């Protein structure tokens, strides 16, 4: 048990900070995902075939390729791509990008593909009459989206978004391969230096279970809040 003590002798505080890091990466990735969904959902629902193609390409490729491969692409390709861009502007030094940024971006793009599908499904399941009624009443497109479509859409999207959140949370364990010290990486380090992998990986499992359990509780509360009036 003393292996888990807080302070210099144990791994307790390290694991605690690693858990915070996992939460930080998950939240950042989820927000980046929302940003991507905001771009690609309209593309997928657009009337123009070429826009649809771009949207479908994004969601199909990301959802059909393993997360680990996407992370390797970002990890090995990220600094190369940035250095290439920098070289255009006349900067030739070696640039190393932060593991946190690479990791959140990679997971964010993956999470964005799932979020896009969720938003698309939610918008499509809203009755056509709602759009028509808004049009007939002369409500402009902006108000129509924020005041009529979005509130109805959120109610439909929250249960599925909670799944996306769980996937994102679990996917963050994969960024440990890039060296970012989150739960998985910290357990790996601790297991390596104490030669007690069973204990530390079990603790990692418990920490992840706690995170998924807590987020379930919070999401359930959100769900009841947004389904009021139905």
């Amino acid at each position: 048990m003393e292996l888990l003590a807080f302070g210099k002798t144990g791994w307790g505080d390290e694991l605690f900070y690693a858990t915070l890091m996992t939460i930080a990466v998950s939240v950042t990735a989820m927000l980046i995902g929302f940003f991507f969904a905001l771009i690609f959902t309209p593309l997928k629902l657009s009337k123009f075939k070429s826009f649809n193609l771009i949207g479908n390409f994004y969601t199909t490729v990301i959802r059909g390729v393993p997360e680990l491969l996407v992370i390797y692409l970002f990890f090995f390709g990220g600094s190369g791509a940035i250095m290439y861009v920098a070289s255009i502007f006349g900067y030739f030094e070696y640039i190393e990008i932060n593991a946190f940024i690479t990791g959140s971006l990679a997971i964010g793009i993956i999470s964005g593909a799932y979020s896009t599908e969720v938003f698309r499904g939610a918008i499509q399941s809203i009755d056509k009459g709602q759009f028509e009624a808004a049009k007939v009443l002369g409500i402009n497109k902006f108000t129509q989206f924020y005041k009529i479509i979005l509130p109805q859409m959120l109610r439909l999207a929250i249960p599925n978004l909670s799944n996306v959140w769980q996937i994102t949370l679990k996917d963050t364990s994969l960024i440990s391969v890039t060296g970012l010290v989150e739960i998985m990486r910290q357990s790996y380090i601790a297991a390596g230096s104490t030669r007690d992998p069973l204990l530390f990986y079990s603790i990692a499992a418990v920490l992840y279970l706690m995170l998924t359990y807590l987020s379930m509780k919070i999401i359930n509360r959100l769900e009841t809040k947004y389904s009021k009036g139905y």
Partner: protein
Amino acid sequence: MVSSFPKLLGATVITLKLLSASLFFGLIVGLLFAILRLNKNIFINKFAYGYSYLFRGTPLLVQIFIIYFGLGQIEYLRSTFLWVILKEPYWCAIIAFTLNTGAYTSEILRSAFQTIKPGIIEAGQSLGIPNKIIFYKIQIPIAIRQSLPAYGNEIILMMKGTSLASTVTLMDLTGVAKYIISTTFKPIEVFIVAGGIYLFMTFIIHNFIKYLEKKYSFSQ
């Protein structure tokens, strides 16, 4: 880009082996636990729920690491015949994938069993068919048909999951891709080839499930 293709294609065989083995065992485990979930005994029921909760609430990576690195630590296990299996990363990966996909499959099958209309079972009973035969010949086929779309997704998720085998030194498609990237520093080219192979497999699985859905649809 061209020179890496044969190597990656060779590694695809390992990915497919891992996938088919874990899906086969996972389906058995999933069916078993789905039946346990429907059991009226609260302990059996809770046990099956706990299993699926544990494996669905933790990342697959943790599960592989516990089985590959963690179980080897137990002295007792090393002396039993299980050690022959547990010292091989290949079998550890298959065990982890099986238990993981088994948890998801049990949930899919459970919800399929629960959506079967009671009238169908009652019809069977009133025709004097024994309960066992109702279960094997009526409930299981309907449940399998019901769960096809969700199970198709699970197959694709599992295919992507096999990429984690590369973290326990197995040279599957992702493992070889990473090796080529780190030796040639051409991440984008390798990503396109390896990603293309994965996408091709996704495409085949997707269409195969669609074909099955059509073939076994209720309305003809």
